[in-house]
């Protein structure tokens, strides 16, 4: 099938993606290099989903290049409370996303490049992909000391992690993606990836903290454009395809039918927080009320992001037991989320006895319980 050159780019790409393996002359047949024009993490993750679910990769492989505005991305089976500082993220408007691949937590900003290598499941080979990236980097700067470890990390100067890896395998398609720190905000990275929450017991996949460094710090003349281009060129060379990067818009339904639904799904609370494996928080904290120090013990179990069990131990008679019970009972089934808890606690105050002392104690208690979220 010959593509008329008069077709618009979008429609052209649509057909390129559609075309069967046999009988087509263009090298898009054997491989494709795509680059996203969006820096929205949910849109970009949706592109990965879409390619995984819809493209026929029988005889073709795809490289996808993307960057995101400040976001923390956790792995499929991780616990965000365990992995990052949600409070700082809320204050600084840093997004939280959960990807479908496994692995640990990473911080993305526009100084970080993401590479996704799509292959048929049988050709899933992460080390080959990492060697390709290393080769591209060394091609740019031969004196760069970069190598891949057996944990599929890339280390700079033997010590500093500049790339982490994760992968997703489906029935017929697999993808391996990795990050690459070029000029990311390292200080924000380390503060945001340190969890302030204590007392969490969970079987979620933990992350391995590592010392990181930016390529830019090693060589200020290296820009992310150069790096992206070098990796694309190396990929093109390896797969014997044109070194042509196709820009894609992840919001374009004509090229990616159904993608906006995938983007929406990735943004739902049920996916981001609700997919956290069951965990419990057992901890205690101190509250100051009118010059006395009070110790509060808390035991909360969270499943699917919602509170399943809630026990709050207060000093005897500080708050009428009925009120404390009311709070515990209403928290059960509620999302483990500060805004939901605030709304809930405030609504409940309306039907409590109207007493300034009771109200201020209740508010104090709720504010403290919310710091656990």
């Amino acid at each position, binding site marked *: 099938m010959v593509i008329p050159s008069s077709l*618009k780019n979008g429609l052209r790409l649509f057909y390129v993606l559609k075309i069967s393996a046999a009988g087509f002359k263009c090298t898009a047949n054997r491989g494709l290099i795509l680059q996203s024009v969006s820096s929205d993490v949910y849109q970009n993750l949706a592109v990965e989903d879409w390619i995984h679910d819809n493209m026929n990769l029988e005889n073709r492989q795809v490289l996808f290049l993307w960057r995101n505005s400040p976001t923390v991305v956790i792995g499929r*089976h991780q616990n965000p409370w365990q992995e990052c500082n949600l409070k700082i993220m809320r204050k600084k408007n840093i997004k939280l996303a959960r990807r479908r691949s*496994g692995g640990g937590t990473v911080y993305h900003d526009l100084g970080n490049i993401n590479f996704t290598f799509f292959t048929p499941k049988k050709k899933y080979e992460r080390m080959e992909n990492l060697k390709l990236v290393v080769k591209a980097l060394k091609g740019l700067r031969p004196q760069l000391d970069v190598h891949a470890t057996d944990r599929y990390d890339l280390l700079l100067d033997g010590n500093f992690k500049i790339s982490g890896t*994760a992968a*997703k395998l489906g029935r017929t398609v697999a993808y391996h993606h990795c990050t690459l720190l070029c000029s990311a905000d390292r200080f924000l990275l380390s503060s945001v990836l340190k969890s302030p929450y204590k007392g969490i017991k969970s079987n979620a996949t933990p992350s391995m903290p590592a010392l990181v460094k930016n390529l830019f710090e090693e060589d200020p003349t290296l820009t992310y454009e150069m790096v992206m281009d070098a990796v694309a060129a190396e990929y093109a060379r390896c797969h014997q395809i044109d070194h042509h990067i196709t820009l894609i818009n992840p919001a374009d339904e004509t090229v990616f039918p159904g993608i906006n639904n995938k983007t929406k799904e990735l943004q739902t609370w049920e996916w981001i927080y609700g997919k956290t494996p069951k965990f419990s928080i057992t901890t205690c904290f101190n509250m100051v009320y009118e010059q006395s120090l009070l110790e509060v013990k808390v035991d909360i179990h969270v499943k699917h992001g919602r509170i399943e069990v809630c026990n709050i131990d207060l000093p005897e008679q500080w708050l009428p037991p009925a009120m404390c019970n009311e709070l515990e009972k209403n928290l059960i089934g509620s999302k483990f989320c500060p*805004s939901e808890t605030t709304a809930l606690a405030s609504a409940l105050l309306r*039907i409590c006895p109207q007493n300034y002392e009771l109200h201020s104690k209740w508010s104090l208690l709720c504010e403290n319980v919310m710091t656990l979220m």
Partner: protein
Amino acid sequence: MSIFDKSAFKFNHQHRLFRTSAISNGQIVQFKLSDIGEGITEVTVKEWYVKEGDSVSQFDSICEVQSDKASVTITSRYDGIIRKLHYNLDEIAFVGKPLVDIETDALKDVASEEDVVETPAVSHEEHTHQEIKGHKTLATPAVRRLAMENNIKLSEVVGTGKDNRILKEDILNYLAKQTGAILPPSPKPEIIPPLPKSETAPAAPKDKGTKIPIPISKPIVFAGKDKTEAVTGFHKAMVKTMTAALKIPHFGYCDEIDLTQLVQLREELKPLAQVRGVKLSFMPFFIKAASLGLMHYPILNASVDENCQNITYKASHNIGVAMDTEQGLIVPNVKNVQVCSVFEIAFELNRLLTLGSAGQLGTNDLTGGTFTLSNIGTIGGTYAKPVILPPEVAIGALGKIQVLPRFNGNGEVFKAQIMNVSWSADHRIIDGATMARFSNLWKSYLESPASMLLDLK
């Protein structure tokens, strides 16, 4: 292709590899964890998508396993019922060992590792029929192969051929509908069908940019199901609040306010507020006017105890503003309006709105309210019947501002900016006259904003 007589073929087709008994009790098959690649031998089971007793179809997701930073979705090779899960969450599963037991009928729909097609012996007959979930489905071997290669279950395709036979076009239409025709047809020559006309149309330049119309020959079936879920969290608290609220005997009082002058005033003041970094809406005026009114009718800013035995006149005018957020209806309040200027109220309102949309309002902002205004008019509507929020005793709902014809003092028709207000009050302690007088006072401040200047503290 060997030749079989009809009866032998039928027998062979239905009992390809296994002996199946007559009807319901299928064979229990142990579905083993297949090879994941990279020489991996064990994985951790992270999430089950099915439980014992669930029925699954071929290619449905069964579970999610993880190995060394790779998350793998394991899909079913059979149609059937899950009879046993061999692992619990977080246990290690082994490649090559059983993962689940599936009870399945005759294994005609088995997908092998390489998605192998039927044996040639079967394709001798021109029409093969198939028991799929109790329905016979007619389709040629070529069509069945096309379906297999594109992960389609024949039972889901509507056949448009003779006797409801499934044709190649039916498979392609089904495909096109599912994924916008992303999966290409198989390259083998005997299977490449002529593309349905609708798909070739966009190739012509004159159809540049138009969406491809896909003919649907399926009868319209409504597959919706009722969904029941528990009322939890904030909604549960609302149930309690509203139940308590409706124990209060409400009475309503409505009126119409001519905001023509206020609209003009706001236009003048908007840029001034903008310079100070604040967005000025009508609400700050409504709120301040309400506070001025409450000074004359403090019973509207009061609270009664549970048995209505004591009434507390609140000193602070903490006026709540109903806000529609992701959680639902929340009511943050502006504290001490009685000592705030209109600008200060606007500033505070901006702060509450910003925090509200980010889901970051604190308990202090959401509690302590004494009187509430609900600007439902921003969404729409004119009159309303608002529900009092305990422990308050009154609430006002503001409709949308409409441009309507009215008569002025000279009997001439002019364009007026009209807004309706609907008050509800606790009839145990507030009577109609009090509510009416408060409303009139509030109305007069808003209809001639200059009069507010006289009483501003």
